[in-house]
């Protein structure tokens, strides 16, 4: 199976490559349109700032390439946010794959710290991505912006408010959390993705 990871100006891309390698998969890191189109699976991971990342993708035509992919695609963290319609971070229009607006967390009490960082639980996971899950599984999050609950939500998490921990539409999947840093639970999600 050919697995491609989108190469762009976001941080922490290597942790997903390591995670795939631990599972015996040797992914290619590429920004080449042809290589991305021909891969059996595409991962779109990363950490960073939305508007900077979006500008980078647009300048290289990668926005159109990602939008038109037809094989299973998995966005992670900033990848999920970039797959939405618009982000409050840098007030930027994004890829529009998911019909959702990315918002910044607004603390309601002093204990509500932003970023939301650490292990939190998946609620009502409903997708082949979460095959074998019952809800309550802990996964690792680091983010200050979130996707509100919407029709494309396939798992939610509670932090200040309930938000989308994961999204799915057609061949596109995305998680706000980092499966590559979520121990055995995260590995199961990556395996499910490769099996889709």
């Amino acid at each position, binding site marked *: 199976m050919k697995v491609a990871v989108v190469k762009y100006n976001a*941080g922490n891309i290597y*942790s997903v490559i*390591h995670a795939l390698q631990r599972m015996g998969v040797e992914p290619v890191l590429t920004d080449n349109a042809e290589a991305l189109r021909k891969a059996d699976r595409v991962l779109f991971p990363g950490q960073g700032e939305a508007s900077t990342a979006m500008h980078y993708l647009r300048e290289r035509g990668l926005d159109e390439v990602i939008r038109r992919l037809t094989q299973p695609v998995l966005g992670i963290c900033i990848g999920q946010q970039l797959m939405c319609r618009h982000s409050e971070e840098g007030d930027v229009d994004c890829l529009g794959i998911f019909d959702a607006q990315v918002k910044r967390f607004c603390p309601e009490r002093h204990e509500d710290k932003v*970023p939301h960082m650490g292990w*939190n639980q998946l609620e009502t996971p409903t997708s082949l991505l979460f095959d074998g899950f019952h809800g309550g599984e802990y996964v*690792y999050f680091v983010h200050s912006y979130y996707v509100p609950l919407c029709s494309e939500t396939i798992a939610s998490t*509670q932090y200040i408010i309930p938000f989308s921990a994961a999204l799915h539409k057609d061949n596109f999947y995305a998680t706000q959390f980092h499966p590559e*840093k979520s*121990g055995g639970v995260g590995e199961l999600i990556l395996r499910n993705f490769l099996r889709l």
Partner: protein
Amino acid sequence: MLAKRIIPCLDVKDGQTVKGTNFLNLRQAGDPVELGRSYSEEGADELVFLDITASHEGRKTFTNMVQRVAAELSIPFTVGGGISELADVERMLAAGADKVSINSAALRRPDLINEIARHFGSQVCVVAIDARLDARGWTCYLNGGRIPTQRGLFEWAREANDRGAGEILFTSMNHDGVKTGFANEALAELARTLSIPVIASGGAGAREHFRDAFRDGHADAALAASVFHFGEIKIKALKQYLHDEGIAVRNI
């Protein structure tokens, strides 16, 4: 619910863990990667690797170790020790660390916090503070607790918070190694005044101490070394205990 985190800390010298360990089943008991893996399998939520090597050669060995940890473990980890400029941070992140912990370098040059936050994001920047309670109140110390400063714990923690630190790792020098519990009053004061997570360190000797750091100290995470290394407290059992005490933890 966001879980309280349990973080074992490993001191590394010339690529080997320094403190003794109870993990006799390991192929190489002194290998930090193997030890990190067994902690991860036991349910540790994060790991901290502290480089206590002084030599240049040792630094290189540490960087290689960080690369192995990143390749082999699937939980987040922080590295610290000897990080004094942006280039050090860049090297550690490039090697695969999720966060870096800075201590004396931040006290000497607080702008380092702003620089890390701006270049790599606040989530990367853990500011570690060693402080001792004396007649003046809580005072910050440099160089692993050897040199006192004029800075107070609470005002320095607040400044680090405002400069863009992602977390505060507070070690009470009064409590460290004594095993009678964490500095819960100071922790509670930090939790009350800061807008970023606080990691409690120094004083863990029993399961109840972790409960108290979370319940009374309102800490977001608790770090310990010897009680884990010597197997006095097993992480799995600790988490079951905390869960039974009504504290949200993962992997029970």
